[in-house]
């Protein structure tokens, strides 16, 4: 019999053997359009992965061209990005089908509309989903530790619009606040000799407050690999966790050290208030920056300052060494190791060994300052499976990410440079990558 319909072969092929008929389990978007004039109804369901239409299925109540256009558009759309698919027009569908009878062009050519509706449905769902997802989390970013790394990471994350909280068990500013609050900043470009550590910490805290960073003065008792923080007040879930627990002065491991290290009995790890050392004979153990800094800070108060340095020279910046040499009351013992600290109630003397001459020296002292370096505070992370090197520094990639997805590390636990300027730059790196990870901006 003669074909009595004005449909092209391609239309008839899609009508007779429609492609991608049906529904998608857990479809990401559903578009339903109807033509009020003739009563056609089309439903298109889509599955989206990474902004690409992974699957498109249809069901159509309508005439031959309604079914053919539905079938055709599923073939055209699969594999396209949402943006590309939104650009498919009714006309293009008709052209792909080798044309439609003029009367059908407007009536039964709704497939493009149905696809666009499904994509828009997906997009609105996605926004909703993201909202619900966001509600499941307490914060975008939770930072553990409120020292230089933690505070500045918090500021820079909040600056990018991420909901951020910082947990700090003790003082904001971390080591800067308890170890050297009054020290002038010397190696932070732009601030050198202008402000003290306390000034800088105060600026950070104010900036963080201004950017609505939640500053929680609470000890974090546990961090779980699924990015939950258990603190004194409860549990908090973050999409990203940033560890910024900083470092502490290392123990000297010297005989007698422990006996005098508490309750002002003569062993100290840093010079908090030089006034406490007025008229005292002090021995500083160590040969690096901390030792030199301790000596310089005591220059106006202590009676006699001895630095016991294991090596042949001090490991500090030239300018500081020059300043040190200018102080008469400072004596530096090179190649000297402190073996024992002794006394009845308080420190009375130390036993040292001249490593070159191989002979022991005894010196009467009132105080011992152990400035042997800083140890990263990472002991607590061992049980959650974070990888670290043999000195206890967390291993991170160039984005500051640890081996666990979504957990980053900044500052002294990630860098043996142990510089504020490095901690701040780590913060900038993390804020940038956290933003990309959480917001998935178009430019990435």
């Amino acid at each position, binding site marked *: 019999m003669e074909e009595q319909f004005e449909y092209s072969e391609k239309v008839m092929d899609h009508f007779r053997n429609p492609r991608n008929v049906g529904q998608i389990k857990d479809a990401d978007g559903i578009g339903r359009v109807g033509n009020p004039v*003739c009563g056609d109804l089309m439903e298109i369901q889509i599955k989206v992965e990474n902004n690409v239409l992974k699957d498109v299925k249809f069901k159509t109540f309508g005439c*031959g061209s309604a079914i053919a256009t539905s079938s055709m558009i599923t073939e055209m759309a699969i594999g396209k990005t949402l943006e590309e698919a939104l650009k498919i027009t009714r006309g293009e569908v008709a052209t792909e089908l080798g044309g439609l009878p003029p009367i059908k062009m407007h009536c039964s050519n709704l497939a493009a509309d149905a696809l666009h509706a499904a994509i828009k449905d997906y997009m609105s769902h996605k926004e909703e989903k993201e909202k619900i997802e966001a509600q499941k989390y307490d914060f975008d970013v939770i930072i553990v530790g409120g020292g230089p790394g933690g505070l500045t990471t918090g500021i820079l994350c909040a600056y990018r619009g991420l909901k951020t909280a910082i947990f700090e068990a003790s003082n904001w500013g971390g080591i800067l606040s308890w170890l050297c609050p009054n020290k002038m900043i010397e190696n932070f470009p732009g601030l050198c000799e202008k402000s003290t550590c306390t000034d800088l910490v105060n600026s950070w805290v104010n900036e963080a407050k201004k950017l609505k960073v939640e500053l929680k003065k609470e000890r974090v008792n546990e961090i779980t690999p699924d990015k939950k923080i258990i603190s004194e007040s409860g549990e908090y879930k973050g999409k990203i966790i940033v560890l910024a627990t900083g470092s502490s002065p290392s123990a000297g491991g010297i005989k007698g050290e422990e006996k005098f290290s508490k309750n002002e009995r003569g062993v100290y790890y840093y010079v908090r208030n030089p006034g406490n050392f007025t008229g005292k004979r002090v021995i500083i153990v160590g040969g690096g920056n901390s030792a030199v800094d301790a000596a310089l800070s005591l220059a106006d108060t202590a009676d006699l300052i001895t630095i016991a340095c294991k090596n042949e020279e001090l490991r500090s910046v030239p300018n500081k060494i020059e300043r040190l040499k200018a102080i008469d009351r400072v004596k530096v013992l090179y190649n000297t190791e402190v073996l024992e600290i002794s006394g009845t109630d308080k420190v009375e003397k130390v036993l040292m060994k001249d490593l070159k001459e191989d002979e022991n020296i005894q010196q009467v002292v009132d105080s011992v300052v152990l400035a042997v370096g800083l140890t990263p505070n990472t002991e607590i992370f061992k049980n959650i499976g974070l990888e670290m090197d043999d000195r206890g520094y967390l291993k991170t990639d160039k984005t500051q990410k640890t081996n666990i997805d979504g957990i980053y590390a900044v500052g002294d636990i990630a860098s043996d440079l142990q510089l504020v300027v490095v901690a701040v730059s780590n913060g900038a790196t993390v804020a940038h990558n956290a933003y990309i990870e959480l917001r998935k901006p178009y430019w990435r």
Partner: protein
Amino acid sequence: MKQVYMDHGSASPIDARVLEAMIPFFENDIGNPSSLHSQGRKAKRELENARISVAKLIGAPNPKSIIFTSCATECNNLALRGAALRYKDKGNHIITTSIEHMSVMNALKDLQRSGFEVTYIPVDKDGLVDPGQVKNAITDKTILISVMYANGEIGTIQPIREIGEIASERKIMFHVDGTQACGKIPVDVEKEHIDFLTISSNDMGGPKGVGALYIKQGVRIIPFMLGGGQEFGMRSGSENIPGIVGMGKSAQIAQEEMTVESARLMKMRDRLIDNILKMEYTYLTGHRTKRLPNNASFRFSFIEGESIILQLNDLGITASTGSACSTKTLEPSHVLIAMGLRHEEAHGSLLLTLGRGNTIEDIDHVIESVPKIVARLRELSPLYVRK
């Protein structure tokens, strides 16, 4: 592949006996009935014989009341416009129904534009007109009532006799569009008080291009084909003798064989209806018993008629639908809408009209094919949920 033609309502094949009767009038007997020579007189005789056959078929006592035209559409136009304009001094009100053929609908619309008022009587869910409503619609301005004898889309046969009695009682002219009825069921213009009856040739196995209008003796119309005064001045133009001879022959065969043929068709129709209705979400359209013997019309929920037609076509079955998608205007069938169906219900209509050539094997092929197609299309439909 087996071919089954079930769209006789749209067009019918010509009966071989009719074609045989017509052939001489294309070849040798080519005279004009108006001519005085023997060829002309032969044509004139055959013309009048055809008139007698058609008159007999509809119980018209006088063959002169039969006017041959070119088709049923012309008959409807001639009757409605001719009568309305002729008797416009008596009144300007016309009553019709909401399920008439477009040739009635549009002719009346045109009359409305020239000042006539038309009342459209609704139909019930089976497509039946209530004579009481016709009666109630009559005013002292009513000059014409037009009701189709039977509707080709849904098969429903109207209570023509009751309406005719009402019209006759109130001295109102009664036009009946008998296109689908004449030749298939008994029609009697006398008993049914019909003043104008439209008769189609092709719908009873005759050739296309011929129709006949019965005009009751004594009733006048204003003709619109003016010329040589053929057909008693009602329809000028040289007569289509081969066509008219064919129509006369088909009327004669229809009259002789109606009882047997309609019983045969009804048996097949009922087998079709009973089997198709076994499917879920499937409904008959039109009245179950007051129904043309050759009409089986359905609607299927959740699917669309054009799709059904195209799929049936692939299986060798030719059928029809009232779906909007199948029309030039994209409007669904006004008949289905008048019966109270919603657009989407009218969407799923399937019309099977049987004819002389159909056999019981054809019926069984359709009974086997339709459920497959319906199931297939329902799988595609977003509305369908399996019971």
